[in-house]
Every structure is written in structure tokens, then in C-alpha cells.
């Protein structure tokens, strides 16, 4: 027997998309509009962000950060929590490149509009360039090495407030400095009267606008508060439904739902396959203290890669290195002397890469690296090695045979680093920045929604997250997700009088 509840607007997901929509629609509560956010993950108390690697990865990430693609050769990192993946990113806040939005060619979506909305959220989230005294050696060496290698190095604007430099951003900031939706947009929405229910998984959406929702009990000893609702099965009806469950969760939910949707649903999934590279310096550097991601080199247009500074934790570092045994251990023991660079390949949407659901309705990610994407990783690895050596590293650990490249071989990087060493199943590739699956476009033949997140043929259903992106964004996506979600919220406000007046069918439970 299900408990039934009725709302005017239900938002599924509370990350950069859902959190933004919640804030932007919150003023409607004053007019008597009932708004509910359903978040699959838990709500964490400040003191629960301990920075302990396995403990936090297990609490925050889907499958502890090890969500596997169907063929098991790549892991995908995305969070499940109040605030979604904004809890675990590094706060990097870039505005989409004009070229990329132009190449997306979505009718009605202009770069100038996205840039304006991005600026609004940049201000709201305290986005700024980190002051020089807070930059650590790991980042300074990237600038130094990048300039010596002839690259244009840019500083990341970040959305932190009172950053103490824990370096633990990817495990959830233990000092609540990062201004994700869990710190800014969701609390504002809740103060305005929006209801947020955590540990609530939406299983499907029916054509009569009834949502099947399962609220889970907090497992014994687990982090996070219990759900705001009693554990159990619910049927929730809404006049407007906004799906913001991310590039895997949103298409999977819609694929589970008996709705008349575009056949393109689940298609055009893409991401930024990423590789962590490390180099050893002759002396200790500050690396595991300070903001981890302050600079980047954008070669997306020319060479299909972006390099970013990064600093990871012992297990993630260990699993990202190629090989095993004594040489692997030697690099790990050099941790205080390690410089790290993250290589992001810019992968364009291809027909085979897509989201489906299995017999249990669980998402399955079909993803294979194309030759062009592998080439981006190879080029990025060579460029990172040049930066490392330019910064004075004595050796670089990279996918190569053998994986250690000494400084004396710095002139032979093209021969040492080749696609032969990037075979699936031999390199630790992890992707974040998941995109596509419910893409925007002109009509139902090749897209799921229009440029305002309105699902073709289902006027009460909207999508507001990175699943709308019709192709790779080629940079860190959070600010653009917020800008797109802001458009979705604007369209909902515009359509609200008609949609909120529409009659609802009674429960069939």
C-alpha cells in the first residue's frame, strides 16, 4: 500500500540543475504553489565531512566512485547527496566557450544568454580567482612548466568562501567553503518554503503524472540524516515534473517510465574521459594542502584535451597509476614529492555511446573510446609530460612501457607515449562531467527536449541538468548546468499559469 501526496511542482534531483530550479521557482511558494525536491542521496551534517578517503567516497559517490561502464573498462564518478555532484567538485566555475555553444547548434540557445546567466550564478556562488598566497607548489609548478612548454595557462575561477586549503574538495569540503547548491541554492529554496526529501528514489513517472517513489531507510551506522519522510513506497502526483537526476539518472528514469518520448532518449551520452598523471620532483612540494585545482590549459579546439591541476588521495592515486609491483610502490612512496595533472579528453557524442536500463531498471552506460578520443588522451599525456619536465620533475609516470619516463628521455615523448599503451583494461580512466542522454534540439526525431528543457510532446515534463547537453562542453560543466537550469526555470514560470491550472487524475494506487 503506497502513501499518496500531491504537489504542484516536483523536482527530481538536487544538484547543479535541480538545486538551481528549486531556488528559481521558490518565489512561487508565496502564491501557494507546493514545490517538492526529491533527492536520492542523503543530507549530510557538516561534521560528517571527515576527509577520510574510502569513508567519504562510499558515502558520497555512486558505487563509491567506481560505477562501471558496461564493458568494465572505465569508471564514472558522480555523487548522490543533497546538492548532488556540487558537493564533490572542486568549485571550478567556467563559462562555456562561444565556439562550443555555436557548434551545439541548438535552435534558440545562444551563447550570450548562457554567458549572462552564468555570470549571475558566478556572483551568487562567490566565484573568484584564488589569491596568490593560497596557491600551492603543485599548482605553481603547473604554471611554471606550462609556460616553459609554451602553453597558455589559465587560472580557474572557483566558488569558495573561506577556503582553508584542505585539498579535500572531491571528498566534500570539510570546512563548508565550497559554494555548491547544498550551501547556496537549496537552503534558500528551503527557507522560501520548498520541501526537500532525501533518500527518495523516483522509480518511474506515469503519463497521468503520478511518480512512484521509494524512500529508503538510513542503513545502520551510515552517514547522513534519515529521510524527512518515513521509509516506504509513495505515489506522488505533480502538475509539473522537472527531471534533474544527472546524465545517467535522468535518461534512466525516463527510460523506465511509460511515456511517449523521443527515440533519441539515452543517446548522445558523452563525458570527459580522464587520466591522472604524476611526476616525481627531487624535493618535497606542497601538494596535499591548498586548493587542488587552480590552473588549466585548454587545448580542446586544437588537440581535443584539457589539462588541469589536481591532487588526489592515496587509493585514487594508486589505482590511476599504470602497472604494479616495485616501481608502482616506489612512486607511491614519493607522495610528498609528487606533482599531479589531470588530462580530460574532449569526446564528441557518437552513436554507440548511450544510456539504457537493465531488466531491473538500473542504468547501463554503453561507452567506448573512439580513436579520436584516445588520440586526445595520448596528446594530453605528452603535453602533461612536457609540463612536468618543464617544471623540473625528475621522472614522469605515464601509460608507457615501461611507465617511468626519466628526465633524460624528455626529448622522446612522442615515441614513449603512444596509443599502444592506452588499450582498454590497462589504463585507469575515470570520467566525470557526464553529459547528454536527454539532449536539447529542434524536434523529437533527434532530441528529447527543446532549448528550454521542455520535453517534446509532454508539456508538463521538463529536464534540467547536463543530460540536456547535445555534445561535449569541453570544460568543467557546473556553471553551464546552472545557466541551462535557470532557462528551464524561466520557461516553467512562463508556462506555470496554464500548467498549474490543469486538472489532475486521481490516484490509481
Amino acid at each position, binding site marked *: 500500500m503506497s502513501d499518496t501526496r500531491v504537489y504542484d511542482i516536483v523536482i527530481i534531483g538536487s544538484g547543479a540543475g535541480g538545486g538551481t530550479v528549486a531556488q528559481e521557482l521558490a518565489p512561487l511558494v508565496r502564491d501557494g504553489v507546493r514545490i517538492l525536491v526529491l533527492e536520492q542521496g542523503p543530507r549530510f551534517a557538516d561534521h560528517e565531512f571527515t*576527509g577520510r578517503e574510502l569513508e567519504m567516497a562510499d558515502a558520497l559517490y555512486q558505487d563509491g566512485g567506481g560505477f562501471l561502464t558496461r564493458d568494465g573498462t572505465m569508471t564514472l564518478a558522480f555523487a548522490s547527496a543533497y546538492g548532488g555532484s556540487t558537493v564533490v567538485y572542486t568549485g571550478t566555475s567556467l563559462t562555456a566557450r562561444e565556439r562550443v555553444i555555436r557548434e551545439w547548434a541548438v535552435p534558440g540557445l545562444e551563447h550570450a544568454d548562457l554567458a549572462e546567466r552564468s555570470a549571475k550564478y558566478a556572483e551568487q556562488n562567490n566565484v573568484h580567482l584564488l589569491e596568490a598566497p593560497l596557491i600551492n607548489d603543485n599548482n605553481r609548478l603547473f604554471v611554471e612548466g606550462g609556460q616553459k612548454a609554451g602553453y597558455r595557462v589559465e587560472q580557474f575561477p572557483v566558488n569558495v568562501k573561506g577556503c*582553508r*586549503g584542505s585539498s579535500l574538495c572531491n571528498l566534500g569540503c570539510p570546512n563548508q567553503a565550497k559554494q555548491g547548491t547544498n550551501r547556496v541554492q537549496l537552503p534558500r529554496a528551503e527557507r522560501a518554503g520548498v520541501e526537500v526529501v532525501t533518500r527518495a528514489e523516483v522509480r518511474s513517472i506515469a503519463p497521468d503524472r503520478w511518480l512512484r517513489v521509494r524512500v529508503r531507510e538510513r542503513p545502520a551506522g551510515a552517514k547522513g540524516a534519515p529521510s524527512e519522510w518515513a521509509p516506504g513506497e509513495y505515489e506522488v502526483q505533480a502538475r509539473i515534473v522537472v527531471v534533474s537526476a544527472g546524465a545517467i539518472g535522468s535518461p534512466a528514469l525516463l527510460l523506465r517510465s511509460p511515456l511517449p518520448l523521443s527515440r533519441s532518449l539515452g543517446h548522445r551520452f558523452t563525458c570527459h574521459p580522464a587520466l591522472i598523471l604524476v611526476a616525481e620532483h627531487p624535493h618535497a612540494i606542497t601538494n596535499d594542502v591548498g586548493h587542488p585545482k587552480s590552473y588549466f590549459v585548454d587545448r580542446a579546439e586544437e588537440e581535443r584535451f584539457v589539462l588541469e591541476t589536481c591532487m588526489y588521495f592515496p587509493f585514487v592515486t594508486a589505482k590511476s597509476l599504470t602497472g604494479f609491483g616495485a616501481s608502482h610502490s616506489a612512486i607511491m612512496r614519493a607522495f610528498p614529492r609528487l606533482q599531479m595533472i589531470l588530462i580530460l579528453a574532449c569526446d564528441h557524442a557518437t552513436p554507440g555511446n548511450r544510456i539504457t536500463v537493465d531488466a531491473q531498471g538500473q542504468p547501463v552506460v554503453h561507452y567506448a573510446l573512439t580513436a579520436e578520443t584516445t588520440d586526445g588522451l595520448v596528446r594530453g599525456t605528452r603535453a602533461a609530460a612536457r609540463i612536468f619536465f618543464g617544471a623540473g620533475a625528475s621522472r614522469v609516470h605515464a601509460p608507457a612501457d615501461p611507465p617511468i619516463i626519466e628526465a633524460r628521455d624528455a626529448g622522446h615523448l612522442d615515441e614513449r607515449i603512444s596509443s599502444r599503451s592506452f588499450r582498454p583494461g590497462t589504463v585507469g580512466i575515470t570520467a566525470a562531467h557526464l553529459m547528454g542522454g536527454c539532449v536539447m534540439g529542434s524536434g523529437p526525431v533527434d532530441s528529447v527536449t527543446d532549448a528550454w528543457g521542455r520535453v517534446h510532446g509532454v508539456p508538463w515534463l521538463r529536464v534540467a541538468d547536463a543530460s540536456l547537453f547535445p555534445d561535449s562542453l569541453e570544460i568543467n560543466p557546473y556553471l553551464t548546468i546552472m545557466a541551462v537550469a535557470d532557462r528551464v526555470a524561466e520557461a516553467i514560470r512562463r508556462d506555470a499559469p496554464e500548467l498549474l491550472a490543469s486538472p489532475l487524475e486521481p490516484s490509481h494506487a
Partner: protein
Amino acid sequence: MTPFRAVAVTVVPEAAQLDAGGWDELERIVAGAIAARPARLRRQLALLLRCLEWFPLFRYGHRLSRLDPARRTAFLSSLQRSRLLILRRGFWGLRTLVLMGYYGRRAAAVAIGYRADARGWEARR
């Protein structure tokens, strides 16, 4: 030595120095990670470990857990370089579990000099 420990000390040679408590902790971490995975994956992993234990018998005349370290390394390297994706992927998954068990321990983080602290810069002054 169990087949899992034979793989573990080959992937991370320092694991051979672990005392009983250290092994308990490592194996508890791995067991926790496996328990959260689908039953199909758990069965595949158990099968892979059985295969890894017996395959070397045909090449070296001994099971994996009875091989000397050099031959264990050579055998696992051949899996890592295998033409068959299923073998490369299987070894990669097992290697990941070993690294999680070993480097997921607080003692290992201290041993390699990892010092991240919630207090950030303040903790270094």
C-alpha cells in the same frame, strides 16, 4: 598463502610486511567493497581468483600461491598485457581491489607521507 594474498603481495610488495591486524584491515576493506557489488560481479571475481591460482600450473608447474615473486610478477604482467580484454579487465579489477585494501588503510597513507588535513594550511604552520 591464499590466492588473493598472493596477488596482493605481487601488486604491492610492501603488503608482505603486514602483520595479522594489517591483513585483517586490508581484507575487511576489500570484503566491504565486494559486498556492495552485484552478486554476478562477486561470482566473476571468485572465479577469476580460482583461475589465477591454477593457470600458472600449466606454465610454471606450480599454483600462483606457490610461485616465487619473480614468476608471480611475470604471470600477472602477462595478464595485464593479454590480448583478451576479459583477462586485462579482470586483472585490472582485482588490482584495484588490492590497491583499495592496501592504500585505503590509514597506516599506508601515513607511510607514504600523505598529510592532507581538514585544517589545511593551518595544520602545516
